[in-house]
């Protein structure tokens, strides 16, 4: 195997929650750096926490790696350390090549100056000489599609145009390592496609790329390998499909705490639990597309309840509703309830595409409006697999080719 282009060895970084204290620590740190005293790297001071903790991995030349994790998992801090902006508190980072970060699009742009002048300023800040910029100037301009606005001051550009110019400059200066942080979603659809194509070109040229994105579709499209982070630690490093599954599970875990956020109702009948079962009636969280899924709702009644309406709503995690299933809509009479028991919903084929799904459960009065009880995020499941197909559902279908 060739020599890795990036080697990250037990890197940790701490941050401070309180602004006032953070500034004060900054002052102390500068002081102790200056007199060469050993700083207290390993221990946390008051209000400090590990934003990145003991992270190690290597990236080979030409590899494209995705970094996934929820907000505050340490992705951006890690990227900033790789970019040389901040220093790790412990550990080592070795990079054998020229690094460029696609984090700050249009950094150093002066609004009063023209697009042409700003291209030179921006590229110089990225460490390129006048000669190198001259060589690529035309490419940059034609990629941005802004040639007719080139001699206008940047302040008269629309915000989309500024970002386009910034991206074009960054994308045409070829580094050995490219760091990308959530910038693939700039501009209109046509420009986004152009950006993706450009990234693919850089990949083919052997540039190593690290991508941070919340768009898992982008990640699974561009990166064969991904690293999932949780609370500053690596929880998975390997193929992107599994990394995404694990990330989704970790998302669900943090989501569970909101379980009882909205609870309430008249209370004659209450939801005890919502179980998710596989075809063998065993509890299961991870499924494949098209598996048989059974949802079992346990109830408890305090008194005789007549014709309640059972309702289960499926959401994509943190996102929109997929569907809602109701006994009254389906025309199922429920009858009288007393004591404890359960209701089953069976999906012969759970044809939702890989993602994390949460379930809300509600029991309505027979009017279908007032509710006895509701439980948001009563349970969840993950459909395993990468996101080769961007979308929600797999529709059963067949091909006929003539």
């Amino acid at each position: 195997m060739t020599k890795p282009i990036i080697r990250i060895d037990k890197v940790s970084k701490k941050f401070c929650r309180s602004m006032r204290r953070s500034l004060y620590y900054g002052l102390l740190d500068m002081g102790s750096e200056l007199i060469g005293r050993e700083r207290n790297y390993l221990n946390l001071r008051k209000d400090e926490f590990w934003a990145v903790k003991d992270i190690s991995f290597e990236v080979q030349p030409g590899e494209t790696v995705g970094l996934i994790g929820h907000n505050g998992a340490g992705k951006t801090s890690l990227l900033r350390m790789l970019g040389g902006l901040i220093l790790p508190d412990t550990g080592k980072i070795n990079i054998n090549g020229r690094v460029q970060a696609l984090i700050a699009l249009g950094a150093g742009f002066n609004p009063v100056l023209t697009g042409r002048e700003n291209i030179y300023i921006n590229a110089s800040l990225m460490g390129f000489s006048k000669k190198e910029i001259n060589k690529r100037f035309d490419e940059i301009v034609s990629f941005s599609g802004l040639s007719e606005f080139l001699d206008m001051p940047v302040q008269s550009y629309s915000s989309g145009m500024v970002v386009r110019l910034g991206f074009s400059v960054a994308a045409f200066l070829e580094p050995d390592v490219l760091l990308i942080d959530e910038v693939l979603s700039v501009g209109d659809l046509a420009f986004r496609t152009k950006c993706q194509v450009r990234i693919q070109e850089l990949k083919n040229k052997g540039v190593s790329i690290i991508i941070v994105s919340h768009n898992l579709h982008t990640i699974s499209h561009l990166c064969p390998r991904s690293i999932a982070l949780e609370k500053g630690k690596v929880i998975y490093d390997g193929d992107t499909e599994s990394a995404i599954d694990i990330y989704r599970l970790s998302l669900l875990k943090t989501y569970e705490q909101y379980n009882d956020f909205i609870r309430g109702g008249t209370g004659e009948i209450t939801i005890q639990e919502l179980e998710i079962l596989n075809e063998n009636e065993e509890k299961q969280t991870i499924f494949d597309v098209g598996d048989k899924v059974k949802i079992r709702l346990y109830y408890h009644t305090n008194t005789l309840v007549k014709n309640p309406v059972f309702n289960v709503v499926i959401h994509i995690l943190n996102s929109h509703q997929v569907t809602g299933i109701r006994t009254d809509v389906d025309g199922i009479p429920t009858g009288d309830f007393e004591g404890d028991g359960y209701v089953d919903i069976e999906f012969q084929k759970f044809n939702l595409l890989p993602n994390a799904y949460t379930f809300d459960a509600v029991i309505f009065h027979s009017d279908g409006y007032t509710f006895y009880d509701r439980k948001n995020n009563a349970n969840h499941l993950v459909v395993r697999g990468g996101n080769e197909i961007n979308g929600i559902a797999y529709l059963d279908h067949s091909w006929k080719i003539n």
Partner: protein
Amino acid sequence: MRKVRVVKKQAMEYTIISGSEKSTPKLFKLLSSILRDLFLSRELAWRLFIRDISAQYRQSLLGVFWAFFPPIITSVIFILLQSRNIISTSTINLPYPAYVLIGTTLWQIFADSVNAPLKATINAKPYIVKIFFPREALIFSAFLSVMFNVVIRMIIIIGVLIFYKIQIQWGILLAPFGIFVLVLLGIVIGILITPIGMLYSDVSTSLPIVLQLLFFATPVVYTLPEKFPFSLISIINPVSPILIATRNLITVGYIDNLLHVTIVLILTIVVFFFSLLLYRISLPILIEKLGT
């Protein structure tokens, strides 16, 4: 001590070494890497300087007028005060307006130099937190901006020399060196306050007040008190000897405080290296604290 080692083959090829491993601080190595970066960043510094100047003048109607205006207005005030005998100037052997105009121009150059590093770093905040580039370029471009104003302000001094028919001597050829030392002294002080100034706004708020006080502790518009204990002010104040010497070089062509000038010069150079070290060490910490 942890350090960033910048291994340069191309402009941004680097390795970061860090952490708690106990390597002895190789001060000299770090310093030489800083000086090399300062040199390598000259093209970037030039571009940043051109950017700042063109943006400044493109958005200004009166342009270079603003370089002349502050020293002239200060001079006018003191010339008026002096004409009412509020200021005693018996020991000055120059026309008072000439003395004041040259003095305030030199002072303004110094004050600009003190302000420049903090101003440049604060203005660069939006992108220093996002792009890695040799940070020394900011100091370099701040220096270029100050020198640009120096060149413009030379017009005031030349105008004064012609208007008051002051006999110039060969010694005036050393005056640019005096001005350079004045700028260097100002910039060194400016760099020293930058790290704290980036963390706390108190610094930039109090800077004009401190400079105003220093103005009156420096023989800009009057001569130095020679009686103890007030004479101490001029001994402690590092600006005085350089400003006096430069003014003397311009007007009479010689200096009579060589020892004092030499001491300040040596101190300035030593502290200059120290300030660069401070700047290099503190910026990553500042960026971390300032966030994105």
